[in-house]
């Protein structure tokens, strides 16, 4: 029983990571209808930037705040100069461009900081509690709380605020949005900037646990994509819940189904995602409505 609880907690810890990256992915998708395969690497790059500031003697909170601003600007710049020029092109072209971003940022980190792993300071310190043989660290709890808070904030912003409404409208239909006076370009840029900040937050929360390296986020990408798919690509909270689900299922499943072993851990969340999609093709939280033709 204790083992199960521990597994669940570990799964939640891992799931928080997946959900965090999924959140950034979903945000960009909701804002611009693009899946940015380079999201994780951009976030890693920002995490490195924050780490560098700390190395230069900046206090942690200041480094994080400054990097958050930097991340926002980076998101806008990437959108303005890389994504917008191809925004009218076919889906595959955009896929290759975001893959190019993936390679570009990964290589950038590798070039600037080398491939060695670095320790990243944790915002929550290293306290941990044990009760009944079950261990829970402050970092895990803090990460979970932070991710859920960000997801809720984003969800509220997108669903209930005028800005969120304009963001969603701009993503949904460009011409119609222009006719109501929405500055579509500005909205799209804002969406990317915001998603970059969310990605950075995810990386900063996750780096203490995974250790900062240029390849840190790459394995997470698949899980994050699965989590976003599970959540339906339409809901911020759905992405996080999807991530948590996948984390828990992977953790518990790997122990229960011992024949799977360490190598095939990914199989479990994939199988779960596939099953869910076969039953509910739109994902768990999708709110798509049938439109009259």
């Amino acid at each position: 029983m204790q083992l199960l609880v521990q597994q669940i907690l570990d799964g939640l810890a891992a799931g928080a990571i997946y959900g965090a990256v999924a959140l950034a992915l979903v945000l960009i998708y909701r804002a611009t209808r693009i899946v940015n395969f380079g999201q994780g690497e951009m976030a890693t790059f920002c995490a490195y930037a924050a780490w560098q500031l700390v190395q230069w003697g900046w206090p942690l909170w200041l480094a994080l705040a400054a990097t958050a601003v930097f991340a926002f600007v980076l998101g806008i710049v990437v959108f303005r100069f890389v994504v917008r020029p191809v925004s009218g092109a076919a889906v595959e072209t955009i896929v290759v461009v975001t893959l190019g971003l993936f390679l570009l940022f990964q290589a950038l980190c590798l070039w600037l900081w080398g491939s060695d792993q670095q320790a990243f300071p944790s915002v929550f310190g290293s306290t941990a509690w044990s009760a009944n043989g079950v261990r829970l660290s402050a970092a895990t709890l803090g990460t979970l709380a932070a991710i859920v808070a960000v997801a809720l904030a984003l969800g509220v912003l997108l669903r209930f605020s005028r800005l969120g409404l304009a963001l969603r409208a701009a993503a949904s239909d460009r011409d119609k949005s222009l006719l109501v006076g929405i500055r579509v370009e500005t909205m799209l840029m804002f969406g990317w900037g915001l998603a970059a900040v969310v990605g950075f937050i995810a990386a900063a929360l996750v780096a203490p646990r995974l250790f900062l390296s240029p390849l840190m986020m790459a394995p997470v990408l698949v899980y994050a994509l699965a989590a976003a798919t599970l959540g339906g690509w339409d809901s911020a909270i759905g992405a996080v819940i999807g991530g948590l689900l996948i984390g828990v299922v992977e953790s518990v499943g790997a122990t229960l189904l011992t024949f799977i072993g360490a190598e095939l851990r990914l199989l479990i969340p994939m199988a779960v995602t596939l099953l869910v999609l076969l039953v509910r093709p739109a994902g768990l939280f999708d709110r798509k409505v049938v439109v009259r033709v």
Partner: protein
Amino acid sequence: MNPITLSTRLSTRLSLLALVLAALLPLVLPKFLVLQLGVALAFAIAILGLNLLLGFAGQVCLAQGAFFACGAYTSAILVTRFGVDPLLTLPLAAAVTACMGVAIGLPALRLGGLQLAILTFGIAVITPQLILKFDGLTHGVTGISFEPPRPPGWLPVGADTWLYLIGLAAMVICVLVMQRLLAGDTGRALRALRDDPLIARSLGVNLTRVRLSAFAVSSAFAGLGGGVYALLNAYVSPQSFLAGRSIEILIGAIVGGITSIGGAFLGALFVVFVPEWTADLSPALGGLIYGACLIAMMLLARDGLAGLCLQMLSALKSRQSRIRSPNRTAAPRPAAPALTKSE
């Protein structure tokens, strides 16, 4: 998206010319380059399969590398375990991979573009792990090595050239198959599936069969390419089939132009040679330059390299036979309308 086409006669002439040149290349190129070109051909076959699935059937499948691996390992295992003649393993590799393709195509029937992409991406990621897991068959991390097929006595070519020619022959077969598929009813059905499935179904197109066929043929091609790859290297190991391989094939397809048969070659050449060149340029910045190249390419050539070539060709043509078009503002106004203008 309109398929990129040249006039049929020009296209046939170009293809024959290209084929002859390609067959003669080993005479002038150093051995290692010939082998690399052979590898490019193996990729080109896999890319061609992806073009079929992505460009013509509109199915976003990112597991092409997994099919590639399936074909490669099938070949290797057949040669080493069952003593099958290496050349004979190629069609077998294609057949086995086609079965795998259909197996994946079945659940894919219910999934939309994005979900299919993600799911197949997951398959691509898990492939090396699966290879490691079933190490009884695959020899896990150590991989399988074997004797490459030797050139027959009556052909006075080196071993590398023979392998290259095998690849070339396989490629030609695939191109012919592809052309036949696209020309007939299947081609129309595929395009209907890509452009508007709803209308296609109402016109009587059996979407399920067309989709599964597309998966089957596409994966058969990838399996064949994998088999050729295995023969060329005379060695397979999980390292060669990481998730990056699927991405590579995808990039090759898109950079080449996904509705172009010729584009498959161009894309294969791009992914085989460009990363090497950029790494040579600067070991540290290699990855950076490659990523930037990729992005720049897409910004400049949306329909891929094939589209770029066609644009240049048509620009040349129009320069040769240009007639000056009349100035728009000087164009005569249309005849006075029936209604009189009232002040």
